[in-house]
């Protein structure tokens, strides 16, 4: 190891800048959210706020338009839909690309990754255009085969599924990226060995490749899960939580209570609940990571 100019303290001095920035603009805000969730803060009353204990949580949980159950259900459906879609598409593509030549793979990868670098809100506008009842691509294509126009984003039963498709489009790239990277690190020998034994590609994938990339796969799954949970910009740009709250996930409800309704205390309460779920997932990742790591050392 390197001996620093300031002895034991050197690494901490180096870390001072990043830790300070993260503390003030990342850690502290989360802490403040916890504090505000137990107060009656509103947009007109930010300082000198009254303590209300758990009343905000009570109100949020007993709210009936939208009901908390429906918000949880919609968040779960949206997140799981996004997760499964991104994992399937990203992993499937990574496996398919793994079998083509490096040059072709590189070119294709570049195209597939384009949605990954686009702003979520621009993705929202893009897909809102696709789903537009009058000039959207979806209805135009349907029109070509004689099916009447569909109200993708205003029909209560369809809107959520339409959003999941858009979010999968936005998110499969990161899964593709991470899994491709992992595949590149799989030692070619074991694949060769499998081939020599006469196994088909499908079997090699199932028996050899997937187990080999398990830690990465779990990482990709966790990233996709957490990002689905936290999706805000895209839904805001497409439906704002409508029609009639049928696409209102927890992130949207948090925004609505805070910015539209002006009730910061209640918005913070929803944030705390969302935060707790995300934290549980992050801890879960750490535990899995350590378990997988121990296997390999």
């Amino acid at each position, binding site marked *: 190891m390197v001996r620093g100019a300031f002895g034991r303290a050197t690494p901490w001095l180096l870390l001072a800048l990043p830790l300070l920035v993260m503390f003030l603009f990342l850690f502290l805000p989360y802490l403040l959210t916890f504090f505000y969730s137990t*107060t009656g803060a509103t947009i*007109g009353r*930010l300082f*000198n706020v009254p303590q209300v204990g758990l009343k905000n949580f009570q109100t949020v949980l007993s709210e009936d*338009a939208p009901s908390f159950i429906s918000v949880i259900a919609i968040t779960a459906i949206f997140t799981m839909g996004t997760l499964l879609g991104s994992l399937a598409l990203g992993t499937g593509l990574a496996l398919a690309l793994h079998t083509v030549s490096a040059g072709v793979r590189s070119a294709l990868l570049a195209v597939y990754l384009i949605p990954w670098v686009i702003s979520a809100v621009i993705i929202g506008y893009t897909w809102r255009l696709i789903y537009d009842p009058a000039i959207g691509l979806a209805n135009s294509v349907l029109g070509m085969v004689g099916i009447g126009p569909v109200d993708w984003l*205003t029909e209560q039963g369809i809107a959520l599924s339409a959003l999941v498709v858009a979010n999968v489009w936005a998110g499969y790239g990161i899964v593709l990226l991470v899994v491709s990277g992992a595949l590149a690190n799989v030692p070619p020998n074991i694949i060769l060995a499998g081939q020599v034994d006469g196994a088909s590609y499908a079997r090699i994938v199932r028996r050899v490749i997937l187990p080999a990339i398990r830690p990465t796969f779990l990482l990709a799954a966790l990233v996709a899960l957490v990002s689905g949970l936290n999706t805000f910009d895209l839904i805001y740009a497409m439906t704002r939580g*409508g029609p009639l709250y049928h696409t209102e996930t927890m992130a949207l409800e948090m925004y609505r209570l805070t910015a539209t*309704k002006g009730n910061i205390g209640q918005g913070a309460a929803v944030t705390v609940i969302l935060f707790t779920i995300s934290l549980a997932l992050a801890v879960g990742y750490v535990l899995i990571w350590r378990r997988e790591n121990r296997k390999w050392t």
Partner: protein
Amino acid sequence: MNKRLLALLSVMVIVGGACSPAATQAPAATGGAASQPAATTAQESATITVWARNYTVEEGRIQPWAPDPKSAFEAAHPGVTVNLAEGVGSTDQFNRIELSRAGAVEDKPDIFQLDNIWLGQFVDEGITANLDSYYANWADKSDIVPAYANSTIVKGSQNAVWFYSDIRLMVWNKDVFKAAGLDPEKGPATWDELFADAAAIKAKVPGVSPVEFPASSEESTVDRFYSYLYMTGSNILNADNTKAAFNDAGGQKALQLYVDLVKQGYTPKAVLGETADDNIAHVFSGKAGIMLATVGDGLGSLPDGFDVTKFQSTIGAALPPLCTGCQPASTAGGWMLAINADSPNKDLAWDYITRVTDGKNMVPFEVDRTRIPVRTSGLAEADAFKADPYFAQEAEAAKVAHFPPFIAKYTDMIEILWTGMQKAINGDLSTKDALDEAATKVDTLLAP
């Protein structure tokens, strides 16, 4: 060691942050006191900051603030300038006023424009200055239209000055009517005619929504509904604003109109996600036939490419259609001006307000934006208003206009009401149950 330090620092910051009202608000008070003019002298120098609604300060359009009232005011008070700050939209206006009071933003207005429905809440929060002493000595007080004159009194004191008003009319797209074989100059006068016209549009003009009204989770939903509530003889709240009144027989009848329009396919369920702005855009572009109620006759929301002639040939306007045995009704809305309770320049602010709201000064702006004058002297200028093809209808509606209750919890109350309306329209509850549920919640909200 580090973790504990971090924890300690966080606690300090939080506690410090939550207990610093004095720290943020004191500078404003002391700074203000220093510049408070004892009397209007030639040597004083001050700025009157005005927070206005965006379209009242739009460049290239007629403004009530300037040039005349502004230059006259500045001439009368050398050294004092009027700062017409950036105008914003409705929600942003509400938010920035609240944020300013909370001390979160630096800018503080002397005068701010407020939607009449915010008056109760702002008075309750102490944002507005008490104007009793100014009103007492004000000659123009008698010029205010009687219906408006006392509506600025909240908790026994005057707190604002009416700026301009608007009422609600039903509008329709004449081209859609022609295509449906209906007389384009005649809108439905009764609910029965409304349904008949809607049926004709639905049958003969595919792809067009016959009737639209706002039903999304925001204020215009209840505002455009009120006229239909009032015409049945119902009301929003009871006489002393302590209990809900909208769930009586009249209220159910009014909401049933909405429910039936959706059930019979004359109004798409998509209106649950539409605001009044969306509706009127559809009427202008011919995607909708009739809008049940809009601000004025729609002339104030002209899209690009429309001039008054095209407007008159495309859009028709009339009072909201009547149910059998009902009385004509409309809803009055509009904007007021108030003085910031923290302003150090209240006298100057009042002077400017009186100049701006003068009847004759307001007329050009009101004509341009199809608003209703709140001054008798303004209403007397009937000729000027002829530029609005439907001014006669608006004047008629003004006579039967009702005001919403200016209570402190108005925004919370309307949220309960629109949620109930949505449940009925969406079919989740029967009309009676939806209104009863909402009424119970409103009663709890308003209980002392």
